[in-house]
């Protein structure tokens, strides 16, 4: 039992070094809104999604409607839909444990629990559950420290909202490293600029994602560019 806990703890340490600083950045950003810092911890507990929480700060300060919050969150986290596929049937018997592991399936947790390097001699499902719990603990600690710091330290945070697009660019570069193809990025850029300049700036996200989906479906039907399908079947 204790070896299971300590092995999961050790495996989660790299995530700690990522989550605590990123959580602090979120907490500081959140504190700029003027709410009590404990709400930053609560967001880390209930929402538990890095990029979405950064997005929340922008949406909250713009007093966005709840529908916009729902749509933006769904699109932002759409990549998670493809994570669970490789974990089906691997989350253990307990309903509550399965629920919690699905709730806590962040990018980093996925990268740990989907890896083949589960220590020998431990119950894999129990190990995954502990990894999920340790990772969320690191995240909530980061959010809390950041919220607390942000509510006490007085310094100009003007421009700190750039952290969110910066996070997107980081994920974008990693996507390119994985795909090794330029056309998805160029197509999306053109579709996005077209939507911004010709259709609507305020409703840009939903419209442009719909257009991008149409382009992908069209490419699927016509088989262009030919590299797309070949790469996809080769990789899967």
């Amino acid at each position, binding site marked *: 039992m204790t070896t299971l806990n300590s092995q999961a703890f050790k495996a989660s340490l790299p995530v700690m070094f*990522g989550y605590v600083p990123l959580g602090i*950045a979120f907490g500081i950003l959140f504190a700029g809104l003027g709410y009590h810092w404990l709400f930053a911890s609560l967001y880390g507990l*209930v*929402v*538990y999604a890095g990029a*979405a929480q950064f997005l*929340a700060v*922008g*949406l*909250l300060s713009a007093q*966005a409607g*709840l529908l916009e*919050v*729902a749509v933006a969150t*769904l699109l*932002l*986290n759409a990549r*998670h*839909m*493809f*994570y*669970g596929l490789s974990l*089906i049937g691997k989350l253990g018997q307990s309903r509550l444990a399965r629920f919690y592991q*699905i*709730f806590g*399936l962040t990018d980093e947790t996925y990268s740990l629990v989907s890896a083949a390097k589960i220590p020998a001699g431990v119950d894999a499902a129990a190990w995954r559950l502990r990894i999920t719990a340790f990772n969320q603990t690191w995240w909530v600690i980061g959010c809390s420290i950041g919220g607390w710091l942000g509510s006490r330290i007085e310094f100009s*945070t003007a*421009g700190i909202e*750039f952290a969110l*697009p*910066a*996070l*997107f*660019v*980081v*994920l*974008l*570069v*990693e*996507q390119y490293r994985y*795909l090794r193809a330029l056309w998805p*990025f160029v197509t*999306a*850029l053109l*579709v*996005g*600029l077209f939507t*911004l300049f010709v259709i609507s700036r*305020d409703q*840009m*996200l939903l419209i*442009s*994602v719909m257009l*991008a*989906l149409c382009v*992908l479906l069209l490419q*699927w039907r016509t088989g262009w560019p030919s590299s*797309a399908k070949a*790469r996809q079947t080769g*990789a899967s």
Partner: protein
Amino acid sequence: MNDVMDGVPYLLAVMVVMGLATFATRVLPFVILYRVADHPLLVYLGRYLPAMILMLLVLYSFRQEVQLSVDFLPQLGCLVLVGLLQWWLKQALVSIIAGTAAYMALVQLGWV
């Protein structure tokens, strides 16, 4: 301070909506997609859609500011900085902090 206290129900509503939407994206494969997980179209979308959505999210972050003029150069420069750092160093935190610090400096010096 009053308007902040008035905002707490809104803050909690946004939190609940966002929590449910996030959970929905994570639970979907376990309740629906497992039936069609092997369908080539789903594999195809799963491969290319996330990259396209991320590109659109970058544009969405600047939806009020994107211009085909030099006014947008500072933002563009900071985004390129983040991309290059991530390409070379592969340290997400370094890339994000450096880009954000550069942008904050530009904003606070009045250049943006």
